């Protein structure tokens, strides 16, 4: 099947390129994406991103039109359903405005300093993905819009999506938590655990190593204050199956994430930590209490140390 001709330099070329490839892989793994490889990535993305943006500008309306045509039978029902939801959400918004006014009053009365509500938010459009197997998202905002590596990303409902892995002047690459190599520190009720991605599944594995009580299907899982990658209180998903702690106190179950990265068109990048210099200064001054604003609107009180240093696993 395979034939070689005299003077054929294909095999030596192949071997050379494979060796270079393996060296690149080793170097990239060892440097954890930083250094020269990081510069190379940023450079390539800077060159290709204007073309991607131009292509997305043309392609997205076409894809939307095809989507609409394929869903034309249910379009009317969807429209009515959306109108109902808008009405319900407008009513909720009025209630939230009242709550916010009340909260502001209490903050003034008790001289509380708000931190969570001051998070900068950058809304960005998803313009593509690298290839069929790479589940990262490419967005149309970059360093010129204030986006930095490591910043958390949520969807428009406030559900955790992932974090920024690479950033150029005009684009950024988001790695969803469902495929990212790092776990996410979370809380279920008052128990702390770690969420890890699973192979060929959108669901995440929840591990709680010092479980005191069982977890039940439907319980909400939110980011923990022990997380260094995400601000506390952001909803991640819900428990799929009941699970009880084993004899050694460990508990393991699956969690279905609220956000679906495959169908996202718009994401929100959070400028978190809001200002690392201020955060360190505040920690040093050890203010007694600060108020944080989780996305569900409820106010929680924590010490500055509570949201600082623990790893995400």
């Amino acid at each position: 099947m395979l034939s070689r001709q005299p003077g054929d330099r294909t095999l030596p070329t192949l071997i050379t390129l494979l060796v270079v490839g393996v060296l690149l892989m080793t170097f990239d793994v060892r440097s954890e994406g930083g250094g020269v490889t990081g510069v190379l990535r940023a450079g390539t993305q800077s060159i290709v991103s204007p073309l991607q943006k131009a292509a997305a500008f043309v392609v997205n309306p076409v894809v939307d039109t095809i989507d609409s045509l394929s869903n034309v039978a249910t379009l009317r029902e969807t429209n009515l359903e959306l109108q109902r939801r808008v009405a319900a959400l407008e009513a909720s918004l009025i209630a939230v405005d009242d709550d916010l006014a009340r909260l502001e009053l209490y903050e003034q009365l008790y001289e509380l300093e708000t931190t969570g509500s001051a998070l900068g938010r950058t809304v960005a459009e998803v313009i593509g993905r690298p290839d069929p197997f790479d589940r990262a998202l490419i967005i149309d905002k970059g360093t010129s819009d204030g986006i930095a590596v490591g910043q958390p990303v949520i969807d428009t409902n406030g559900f955790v999506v992932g974090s920024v892995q690479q950033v150029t002047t005009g684009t950024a690459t988001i790695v969803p938590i469902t495929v990212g190599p790092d776990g996410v520190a979370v809380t279920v009720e008052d128990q702390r655990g770690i969420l890890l991605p699973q192979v060929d599944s959108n669901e995440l594995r929840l591990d709680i190593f010092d479980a005191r009580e069982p977890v039940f299907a439907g319980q909400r899982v939110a980011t923990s204050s022990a997380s260094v990658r995400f601000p506390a209180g952001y909803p991640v998903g819900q428990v799929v199956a009941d699970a009880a702690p084993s004899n050694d106190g460990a508990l393991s179950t699956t969690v279905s994430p609220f956000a679906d990265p495959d169908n996202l068109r718009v994401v929100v990048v959070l400028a978190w930590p809001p200002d690392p210099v201020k955060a360190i200064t505040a920690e040093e001054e050890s203010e007694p209490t600060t108020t944080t604003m989780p996305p569900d609107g409820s106010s929680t009180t924590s010490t500055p140390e509570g949201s600082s240093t623990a790893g995400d696993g």
Partner: protein
Amino acid sequence: MRIRTILVTASLLLLAVVLQTTLFSQTRVFIPDLVMLMVILLALTRLRPEGVLGIAFLGGLTIDLLGSSVLGLRAIVFTIVAYIAIRTRERADLGRIIIGLWAGLLTFGGVVLLLVVGTLFGQTIILGEGVVDLVVLVPLANAILAWIFAPMVVRLVDRDTTAFRYA
């Protein structure tokens, strides 16, 4: 390689990269791997085999640089796929359907290799939901595209309007 050939090849590769990362990142059923397909189709041209291997390496490296997985993963896989394509291209020159099947089989091998090497290097990002479906869907889409576009790509790169004209 002449300047024109280099320009045409580079343009085709860039087009494949841009379309792959934008248009085909949004499709749900028809999911080709355009860059891998372009590498396979370039093996059918009169480009020097060493040149095709180099283009395959650079094409894979470009996707690696744009993505979030480890650098060099696709570069290695695409280079191996290009090598097998060069060594078996005589068998594809029997008709358009055979070219489609040949490209589909090579893509299947490439996809499996990508998953194996990626798993060995701990790349969880390529093992997300639906990865098993992709092992089937990506080669299928590449086979269809090869059946349609292979003669056009070869004629464009080689400037030979008679290439791959079957009675």
